[in-house]
């Protein structure tokens, strides 16, 4: 008998369900809204946030989810922004459940989340992923830019476990909270979480703009990785810990989204369909919208999805690399941001000519005094310095 893990994302696992070229997607990230009470400086949303008036309506989202189920998608990640800012979230969740989709709520636990979680559980919600910004209220509220947020999150976590829903805690790690990793592991256990994601910040969107304020020192990264490995052994059967490694210090890049256009797709609040949440940072890609196309047509035929699918687009050193079907050349958005070319090898890879520069950059930023955060706000991108930071 065999039981093979076929995802999570960002992991080079077997993928027996997908054909090498255009296979079947397994997950959809539905960014229902960009509205969120938190202002985390590492938010993965783009700098140009969409406004409420431009969001897809309920009927369109329902059609998208029906098409997703027909396409072979297994998991729907209801995300944002803060997804409970959408008043139709219970209706959308019930629709996904009726379509046989596994529903995962990715939430801050703040705002309307507390009043909505009961109805969501009744509508068939399968799992809750709650973000924590730190282990202590003072630090977490400073990072999230929202006073009282941490206490509200702890109360929300209690509601989730009281309802019998499985809880994952997601902790984004950076220099402002890397000293709290041990406490966050203990907190996840105390909250009754089954899973913890120790996600070292990936530098896209707001995190890229705030990189100098977020980049941890290599010694701190190594210490946090050792702590997680020790905790995994100690907590086997109690807490599953997944870790995302900070790739500026890595030897090989992450297989971003499990390979471009290979397993997952991402729908923005206004309906554009992206291979990953940062793909719009690559100039010249043509994204199709669910307003104009069926999801299956977008998956198979949209220019953006086919731009970096498979290995034919690769140049050296990726093209002849023995890891080309393990990490797919790494992340296209990071290649764009750091090498100025989306078809280049991800500079997180030690084979990239830019790798030494990226590592030196991280080391220098981590050693310098951290600048203040540019907090995420709608319209707030104008406060950012112009031009790149590389």
């Amino acid at each position, binding site marked *: 008998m065999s*039981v093979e893990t*076929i995802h999570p994302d960002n992991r080079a696992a077997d993928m027996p369900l997908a054909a090498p070229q255009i296979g079947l997607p397994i997950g959809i990230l539905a960014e229902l809204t960009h509205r969120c009470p938190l202002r985390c400086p590492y938010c993965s949303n783009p700098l140009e946030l969409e406004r409420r008036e431009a969001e897809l309506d309920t009927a369109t989202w329902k059609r998208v989810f029906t098409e997703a189920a027909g396409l072979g998608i*297994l*998991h729907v990640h209801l995300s944002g922004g803060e997804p409970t800012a959408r008043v139709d979230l219970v209706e959308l969740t019930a629709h996904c459940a009726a379509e046989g989709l596994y529903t995962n709520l990715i939430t801050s636990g703040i705002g309307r989340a507390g009043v909505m979680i009961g109805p969501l559980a009744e509508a068939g919600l399968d*799992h809750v992923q709650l973000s924590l910004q730190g282990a202590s209220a003072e630090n977490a509220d400073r990072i999230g830019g929202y006073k009282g947020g941490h206490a509200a999150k702890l109360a929300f976590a209690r509601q989730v476990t009281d309802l019998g829903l499985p809880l994952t805690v997601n902790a984004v790690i950076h220099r402002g909270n890397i000293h709290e990793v041990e406490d966050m592991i203990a907190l996840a256990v105390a909250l009754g979480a089954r899973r913890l994601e120790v996600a070292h910040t990936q530098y896209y969107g707001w995190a890229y703009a705030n990189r100098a304020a977020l980049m941890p020192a290599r010694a701190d990264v190594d210490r946090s990785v050792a702590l997680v490995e020790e905790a995994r052994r100690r907590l086997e*059967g109690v807490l599953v810990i997944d870790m995302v490694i900070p790739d500026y210090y890595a030897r090989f890049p992450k297989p971003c989204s499990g390979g471009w256009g290979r397993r997952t797709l991402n729908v923005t609040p206004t309906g554009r369909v992206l291979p990953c949440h940062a793909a719009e940072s690559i100039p010249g890609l043509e994204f199709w919208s669910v307003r104009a196309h069926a999801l299956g047509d977008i998956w198979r035929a949209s220019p953006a999805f086919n731009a970096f699918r498979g290995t034919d687009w690769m140049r050296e050193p990726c093209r002849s690399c023995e890891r080309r079907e393990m990490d797919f050349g790494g992340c296209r958005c990071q290649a764009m941001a750091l090498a100025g070319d989306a078809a280049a090898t991800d500079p997180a890879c030690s084979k990239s000519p830019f790798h030494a520069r990226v590592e030196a950059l991280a080391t220098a930023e981590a050693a310098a005094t951290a600048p203040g955060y540019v907090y995420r706000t709608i319209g707030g991108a104008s406060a950012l310095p112009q031009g790149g930071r590389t």
Partner: protein
Amino acid sequence: MRAEETDVPRLPRGVKLKYDQVRSRHVLLAPERAFDIDETAAAVLELVDGTRTCGEIVDALAARYDEKREVIADDVRDMIGDLIARRVIER
């Protein structure tokens, strides 16, 4: 981790065995994970109902398949134990 014959395994809320019409096979859906399930593994998981013990699951399979009980017991206890360690099955 290896499950005991006296353990009573169950799929907790948030873990679902599903027959995937698109791929024509069983999948086990869990938080942030899916598991590709072959026919034998699906036969085990269909017997995981929160009332049967591992021993009773082995008995049911031994009655159905032409294989020694000890061999089936080893496979079932390893598979269920592995899924317990990954917090996909509870006991």
